[in-house]
């Protein structure tokens, strides 16, 4: 498969000793944003993946150790966050101002 799976499921079945998981929520105005488009930018700020947030505003990526940028695009606006990820679970929140 290659399409983005539904977001917001638990971590069961994900081997955190191997995977570099970057996950979190998109927030705006004190509430999570459902249906926001979240993209992960890698080397050269290039698109690496994009998912749509769950009803609770959640997103998740499987990356590799290193610097990444998480950018959110929603009808209410845009937000961006840089994250330095390591193997295991890396959590972050993207705020749309």
């Amino acid at each position, binding site marked *: 498969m*290659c399409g983005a799976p539904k977001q917001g499921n638990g971590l069961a079945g994900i081997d955190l000793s191997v995977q570099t998981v970057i996950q979190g929520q998109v927030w705006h105005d004190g509430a999570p944003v459902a249906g926001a488009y979240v993209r992960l930018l890698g080397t050269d700020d290039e698109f690496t993946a994009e998912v749509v947030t769950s009803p609770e505003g959640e997103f998740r990526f*499987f990356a590799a150790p290193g610097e990444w940028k998480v950018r959110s695009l929603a009808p209410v606006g845009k937000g961006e966050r840089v994250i330095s990820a390591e193997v295991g679970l890396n959590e972050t929140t993207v705020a749309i101002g």
Partner: protein
Amino acid sequence: MSRNDVLVTVDWAQEHLGQPGIVFVEVDEDTSAYDGGHLEGAVKLDWKQDLQDPLRRDFVDKSAFEALLSSRGIGNEDTVVLYGGNNNWFAAYAYWYFKLYGHRDVKLMDGGRKKWELDGRPLSKDAVERPATQYTAQDPDLSIRAFRDEVVASIGSKNLIDVRSPDEFSGKILAPAHLPQEMAQKGGHVPTAKNIPWSKAANEDGTFKSDEELAKLYDEQGYDDGRATIAYCRIGERSSHTWFVLHELLGKPDVKNYDGSWVEYGSLVGVPIEK
């Protein structure tokens, strides 16, 4: 062939919903998006269930494609307008697939589901039923589909365009980062391939860049107009997006999509790989 023949805007789509002779088709790998709300009157195609052979790794054959389109109520004379999620990756794949089986008039909705949603346009949850048709497909047009032996033979002679992200091209990751990184294949790329990510051809809202911007992009990246071209990605849907740009929007001749892509190539014994 020009942009207006192969691409419609979301405005055009909204104005033409329900018009006889036009069938809107949502194509996704995960059709839960369609089930949660789709363009009024649009039918769905499941990239995996409907378009892939259930046993072998290949397309459905001609007769199965005919049965599929007949059951969805798509006729040979209908204008088919495809759209979907993931920046139209799977819709672009379906476009290429419809062309392969010779559908006369097929178009993509520019920006796909994302543009539609970001604009706050209406979605419907109503079940869509269309009367069955008797669809007749053509024999597959293999002038737009590349297989692995041709890819290996093209190293150093054709434009090989790897449209994955730089981090997949370099082997840092093996799949787009919304998927777990557990794959059998080796990381890297086909020697002499240029990395021109599909995303460079798209705006952030999922629409295609202008013809002028696209022409400049491939020119700057060293695309050789004197050579035939093969595009690939991981499983062939992002490279369909680039195939659409090169062949349908820019009108470049002799462009093929290698849908076996990295999942196949990176698993082959004995072929050269660069990292």
